[in-house]
């Protein structure tokens, strides 16, 4: 009887540990079982990506539809090249879709937002988005505002 109690408590302990790992995976890190194959890649060039990081969200109408997977510098055009993975159920983006880097809240993290264009052709895997809007740099904005107020005087 004593040994049985020991064995049962060890079993409960192992179960609790595995349950805790599962909780961490599903509830805390939001791991989804969906495989990553049902996405396609899009590339966009930005004049300034300041503050955008990999794993940042890609949204449309505020809904997350993908994420940034790579950021590097394009030596030919002197722009930042951002590679994004977009869920393949969003397969009807027109070729003149605009990608803009926005900020969540005043000091929050950067994310990419798509706004839909009007072309009939749609973007496919590996296509490049030409219509982009760069990250807003607060210092530049303040600089412009100061210049304007000086000019008005």
């Amino acid at each position, binding site marked *: 009887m004593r040994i049985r109690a020991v064995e049962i408590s060890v079993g409960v302990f192992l179960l609790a*540990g595995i349950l805790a790992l599962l909780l961490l995976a599903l509830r*805390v890190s939001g791991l989804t079982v969906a495989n990553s194959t049902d996405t396609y890649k899009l590339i966009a060039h930005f004049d300034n990506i300041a503050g955008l990081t990999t794993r940042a969200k890609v949204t449309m109408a505020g809904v997350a539809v993908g994420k940034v997977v790579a950021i590097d510098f394009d030596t030919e055009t002197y722009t930042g090249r951002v590679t994004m993975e977009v869920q393949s159920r969003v397969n009807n983006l027109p070729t003149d879709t605009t990608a803009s880097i926005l900020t969540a809240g005043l000091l929050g993290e950067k994310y990419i937002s798509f706004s839909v264009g009007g072309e009939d052709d749609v973007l496919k895997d590996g296509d490049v988005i030409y219509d982009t809007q760069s990250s807003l740099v607060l210092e530049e904005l303040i600089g412009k505002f100061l210049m304007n107020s000086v000019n008005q005087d």
Partner: protein
Amino acid sequence: MVHKSFLDRIALFGRSGLDIIESMGRSLIFLWHVLIGRGGAGTGLHLLVKQLYSVGVLSLAIIIVSGLFIGMVLALQGYSILVDFGSEQAVGQMVALTLLRELGPVVTALLFAGRAGSALTAEIGNMKSTEQLSSLEMIGVDPLKYIIAPRLWAGFISMPLLAAIFSVVGIWGGAMVAVDWLGVYEGSYWGNMINSVDFYDDVLNGVIKSVVFAFVVTWVAVYQGYDCEPTSEGISRATTRTVVYASLAVLGLDFILTALMFGDF
């Protein structure tokens, strides 16, 4: 005369260095024998269950209570710092990342060294000083297989699970303080956490850390017990050494692992 004592000092220095290297080598050979010399199943599983009980189940209470309090303190401190920047809704993300990456594995390992490691050393040391280990050898039972190996495996298995339980309880305690007491919106506590915690980068790296710590702490504990001087004074010194060496090794390794995992080189 002066010349001779100088030489003596060099010799002494060299001998203590050799002693340290020898003890490291002995512990490695010991580990090799325990892990590799595990031929034949026998009654291994039954012994392992018994050790899992004394190493894992009996450590649950201290792990749960400290996890709860550490999570609550993190939420309180995080809130009072973040509220100055108006971003108190990020407190969930802060609590979760701190626990998963650092405090979960490290504090669990330190508590484990104090709670289970010292007990392992004292138990094995006592067996050695009362010559139970040599009597086992006398009747043809390998003490490494019968006594040491189940304890080593019990430590490897139970510590990562304890660390996971620690993190879960801590995050829950943080939610209790932040959401129920300080009034952070529940949706942003959990939502921010899910958005910023990555399964591979944060959860899995934390598990890897706790596996490494489990390995080091249990190895130090059983080796110190097996290698101690078979007197009551020797046992007390070995127990102290277990806690000191295991804690130092955990903290040092934690820096190296963190640099490898999260430091961008």
